[in-house]
């Protein structure tokens, strides 16, 4: 059984990657299982300078989904390079997830990480301070511009642009990222949501709004991967509510070359290795010799 996939000329031993923000830099999960079994690790979102994040509570739960508003708490890119990347490198493929408040910040963090990691994944769901706080990932022109700036800073490392579902037309935004120079796309980031404690008449998250993720968003995510797959020619990392090997296969068939698993790491910390094993069994029982045959295989 060949679970390996090629994305932008980089070989992943399997298509299963824990999604950014749910896995730290891998150290804690490595106490539970050897993380070198993973196809890669998408790191906690990184910024140029350390970020303190939002006040607590930062998480809430609704049927089939969670909401989070961590607010990009991270130790900054320099700390990551010295402390975390040094530990993580060589164990598996490293996808450095990066964020910024300005185009200049995106450019600088990409330049700093170029050549040090296997992929850079651009989080474009952050507010753009120059556009009154509107996220970079909403309008196609902004998506293209931020992608173009990031790509310009990269000489060696392939660029993944992580698309936000909070937009008018995700296929158009995917095409805009491709025009801007994206080597790959990942989707979906979380859907913006809100939860209210009706007894307390208050918000469940200190930040009031947060990103919705988990099994309940999967049909939305599958639809979006399918639409983007038919609008672009670059490979796609699909994600959104994956809890099992069958869910992963659903994303591959919709057009993803690899998948990311986020929220389910909280429900089951062994989610990723279980999905890898499950994929192997699923392929064997369905006469599939290479998992890459499944990409876009929905008729």
């Amino acid at each position: 059984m060949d679970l390996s996939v090629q994305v932008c000329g980089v070989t992943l031993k399997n298509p299963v990657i824990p999604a950014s923000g749910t896995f730290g830099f891998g150290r804690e999960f490595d106490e539970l299982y050897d993380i070198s079994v993973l196809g890669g690790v998408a790191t906690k979102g990184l910024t140029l300078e350390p970020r303190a994040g939002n006040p607590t509570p930062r998480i809430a739960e609704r049927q089939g989904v969670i909401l989070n508003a961590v607010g990009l708490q991270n130790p900054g890119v320099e700390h990551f390079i010295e402390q975390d990347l040094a530990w993580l490198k060589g164990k598996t493929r490293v996808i450095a997830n990066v964020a910024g408040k300005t185009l200049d910040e995106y450019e600088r963090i990409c330049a700093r990480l170029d050549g040090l990691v296997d992929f850079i994944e651009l989080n474009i769901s952050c507010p753009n301070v120059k556009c009154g706080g509107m996220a970079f990932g909403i309008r196609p022109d902004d998506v293209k511009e931020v992608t173009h700036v990031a790509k310009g800073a990269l000489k060696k490392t392939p660029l993944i642009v992580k698309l936000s579902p909070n937009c008018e037309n995700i296929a158009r935004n995917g095409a805009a990222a491709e025009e801007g120079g994206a080597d790959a796309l990942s989707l979906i980031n979380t859907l913006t949501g809100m939860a209210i404690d009706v007894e307390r008449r208050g918000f469940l998250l200190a930040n009031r709004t947060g990103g919705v993720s988990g099994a309940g968003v999967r049909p939305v995510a599958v639809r979006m991967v399918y639409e983007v797959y038919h609008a672009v020619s670059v490979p796609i990392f699909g994600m959104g509510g994956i809890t099992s090997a069958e869910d992963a296969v659903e994303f591959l068939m919709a057009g993803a070359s690899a998948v990311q698993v986020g929220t389910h790491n909280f429900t089951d910390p062994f989610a990723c290795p279980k999905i890898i094993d499950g994929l192997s069994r699923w392929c064997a029982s369905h006469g599939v010799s290479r998992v890459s045959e499944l990409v876009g295989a929905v008729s």
Partner: protein
Amino acid sequence: MREVLATVLENIPIAENIYSLSFATEEEIAVRPGQFCMIGVAGFPLRRPIAVCLAEGRRITVCYQLKGRGTRALASEYAAGERISVLLPLGNGFYAAPAEKKIALVGGGVGIFPLISVMGAYADRDIYAYMGFRSRSAFCMESELGRAKKLVISTDDGSFGLRGNAVQAFERDLGQEQFDVVFSCGPLPMLRALKECLEGKGIPAYVSLEERMGCGIGACLVCVCDRTDGAHARVCKDGPVFAIGDVKL
């Protein structure tokens, strides 16, 4: 830290809105006092972080308050004989140095349960327990609490024991007793009051904090608290037990 598929031995109400869940693990797991576990409830994306109350061989007991849909499902769906997924042991726990012979426990509400684990682990010390409940209907764990050298119960409404909270009861004894260390867990106002009454006394004190959690193992940065040095700490991994002077309450 590991995931175990444990067998529920008992899951019963022990006070108003409080359940005691005991489960058996296949092998004995060393749990330090004050550590917690993440319990999976089928159909809910997030595990529930709950402090270990008693760890006796392969039998582990946790107590929880019915607060929302998840804890109500935990109470109704996991009868004796059911299998339950538990991630444990998590967090740092309470530690008393060998020279710390006289330990004060100051607990309020569900905060009494992690402190009961201290009584089991440090049975050779002199334990002075100051335990606060909302009212008589919330009182529980009588036999476990009875192991303390001195036990002072208080209730907010005065329906049982002293009227007032556990810190007020503790403060009355603070003048006469020379405590080597204080361990506490309970609502934030109670912890703040404890910090205030210990100000300048030079007695080491540790508090266990509660926060909504994502992963429970230190990866997601959901359950942070503010340290007095300005940095964030992860309640699940760096805590839940902190020196009282190290965190903003």
